[in-house]
């Protein structure tokens, strides 16, 4: 490699594999486990349809995209056991008990669902699957001397970088898809039309009755510009707080207007924890530890 290329390549590798405070990854895992558990609690009346032979499932002869048939739906009697293990693993991750083992169990359960039931596997489910796969691969922490001369726990940054990159690519490509092959740039009524149908909540219906059409166009272009600007907002350190606030606003708006997309929004908002400065997270977790009884898992590895 020529010296002119070697230097950026080295800097890039240093950035990917640098030692980082593990709190960001811990908080991200905690946040995703928390939002995932809430999401699973959404359908208590429908687990049997979703997971067991009682519901409709395709057969091997008529597979849909993504179907492998490595796994069959569960017998009805096995559903409570499966849910106990699955939700129990998420609860254990939240509590910081046997985190690595429970992460593997959670990943295995998510993978089973992904393969068995592609019909209800949306972006949200896919992001959980990939995130927990990466959490399974996270290297251990080591106690090292920091630049400030203090001993602290550190971890290779690469799993964090992968998840940060996933967040940025997901948003940016979602923006690109809206421009092409989508029509968000050429049609000012895209958001207005999408707010009317089967996703419409009471709030969306209220807004449809009271907001002028141009207001929908403004919201539409805000969302599009934000998605396309995500790489700048989250890669330029100074803009990260602005990016986090805008992300929160966008997801709040989606949650308000689109039925049940609050669970996706919650996941994406927790994903943005990967960009919060480690010292800020330590302040927040320290405050929580002092003020909320029983909160200690987030800071298990802190020095």
């Amino acid at each position, binding site marked *: 490699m020529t010296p002119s290329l070697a230097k950026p390549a080295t800097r890039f*590798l*240093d950035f*990917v*594999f*640098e030692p980082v405070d593990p709190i960001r990854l811990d908080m991200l895992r905690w946040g995703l486990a928390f939002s995932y558990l809430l999401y699973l609690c959404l*359908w208590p*009346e*429908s687990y049997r*349809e*979703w997971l067991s032979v009682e*519901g*409709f499932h395709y057969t091997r002869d*008529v597979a849909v*995209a*993504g179907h*492998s048939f490595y796994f069959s739906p569960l017998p009805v009697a096995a559903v409570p056991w499966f849910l106990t293990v699955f939700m129990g693993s998420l609860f254990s991750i939240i509590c910081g008990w046997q985190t690595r083992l429970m992460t593997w169990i959670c990943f295995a359960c998510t993978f089973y669902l*992904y393969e068995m039931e*592609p*019909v*209800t596997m*949306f*972006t949200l489910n*896919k*992001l959980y699957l*990939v995130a927990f796969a*990466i959490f399974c*691969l996270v290297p251990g922490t080591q106690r*090292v001397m920091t630049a400030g001369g203090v001993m602290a726990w550190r971890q*290779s*940054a*690469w799993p964090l970088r*992968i998840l940060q990159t*996933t967040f940025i*690519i*997901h948003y940016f*490509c*979602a923006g*690109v*898809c*809206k421009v092409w*092959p*989508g*029509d968000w740039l050429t049609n000012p*009524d*895209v958001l*207005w*039309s*999408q707010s*009317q149908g*089967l*996703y*419409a*909540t009471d709030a*969306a*219906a209220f807004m*449809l009755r009271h907001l002028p059409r141009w207001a929908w166009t403004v919201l539409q272009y805000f969302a599009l510009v934000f998605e396309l600007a995500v790489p700048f907002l989250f890669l330029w350190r100074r803009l990260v707080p602005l990016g986090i606030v805008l992300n929160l606003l966008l997801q709040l708006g989606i949650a308000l207007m689109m*039925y*049940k*997309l609050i669970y*996706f929004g919650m996941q994406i908002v927790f994903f943005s924890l990967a960009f919060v400065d480690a010292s800020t997270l330590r302040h927040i977790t320290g405050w929580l530890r002092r003020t909320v009884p029983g909160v200690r898992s987030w800071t298990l590895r802190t020095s």
Partner: protein
Amino acid sequence: MDAAKRMASWKDYTLCSLVALLWIVPIIFHGLTDVKIPYFPRTLSHLIRISKLFHQSQAVWSSFVYQVLPDGGVWTTLDLDDYSVLEPFGHRRRLDRIVELTASDNPQPGFVRREVLAEWIRDRYQALNPQDKLLAVRFLYIRSISGSEIATPAGYWRNPDLRSVTPDRVGLLSTHPFAPSSRVEVSKLL
């Protein structure tokens, strides 16, 4: 390698490279080009489709109606609560999602998939109503046009009632008779 700047073993380099190759590069490629990656594993091909969300305006919303034809009866709309209660996202049931996917398929595989679904509905119906024999199941769709019709509702989305929509908004996806002898009887009712 500068040990102070990096914390990585060969295992970290290997795992990171694998994840980048199987996840990061494909989601960038697929997200920017919308092209299927040739020879890519099937499971991963499905997994990497994460970015194409609400990318186009929605001129028409389709909702689905499931009807059964009992022996000696007339076409009756099913109460979906007995068949599918899961609402994954939006005000639609899991079965609606399944039928929606078959409707966007090529016609022949879509029909075959609905045939399998129709047989499941028959079995479920007969478990719930053992006294009835089903001759056929059919799938209808109702088209709701975005704009003045549905842009100013009083509340959240509700599927339109088949009895209150005009015939031009209703279409037949497919009819699935269950026995050769019933085909003639069904054809009379179509």
